């Protein structure tokens, strides 16, 4: 049985928000239909949103998904497999 490679998901949400007329977390949360705390958790890298929310974010910021979210695999986990 092989372990799935784990890694870190980082994002540019805060940067994109400021680039979009200094949009507040509350405004973004309202546009997405989530709570402000969820936006704060995503920005802090403590919560990974669903694909649905991620694609909604790409629509709001008119930017590709890989510009918003980056995946950095844990090398040690990959080497184990």
């Amino acid at each position, binding site marked *: 049985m092989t372990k799935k490679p784990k890694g870190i998901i980082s994002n540019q949400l805060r940067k994109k928000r400021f680039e979009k007329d200094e949009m507040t977390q509350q405004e973004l949360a309202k546009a997405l239909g989530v709570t402000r705390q969820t936006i704060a958790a995503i920005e802090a890298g403590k919560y990974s949103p669903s694909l649905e*929310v991620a694609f909604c974010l790409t629509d709001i910021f008119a930017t590709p998904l890989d510009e918003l979210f980056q995946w950095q695999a844990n090398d040690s986990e990959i080497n184990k497999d």
Partner: protein
Amino acid sequence: MILKNSNFSEQTAWISVIFTVFIAWYYGTGLMQLEGTFSSHAEQVVGLWVETIIVSTIFVVIAFIALAVIKKITGDDEDISLVDERDELIEAKTTTWAYFNLSTCIAILLVHVFCQGVIINYPFFSNVPPIDFIIHGLMFSGLWVEFVARATQIYRYRKAA
């Protein structure tokens, strides 16, 4: 500070945690003052239940009025009916943990009653009749499970998910 950085689900979880501790204390205190057992003094036990239900209702009404006032004062106009995917994920994890605790509590209650009937000189709660143990045990189990569930929920919210 906690109120400002938390959504309505987390705020209600805090109320539930305080509620369970208060009701456990109230019910436990009332239990100590009971004379006799359920079979001999059923009216006292029923009286304690009624009192507990009334006190619970008053507590919940006061707590939610206080929360509404604090939200109004702090200018928090968050939509309290909004439940997003993170709330649902945390609720699912919480429910799993609560179900595990409830199953364990019920198993402990049943094993205790079984042992009390089978083992001679069984050392635990030997002076408490099985029906009383089940009744009060279920009450405390319910409070314990609610406490664990809401404490887990708060932990998950603080941890982010």
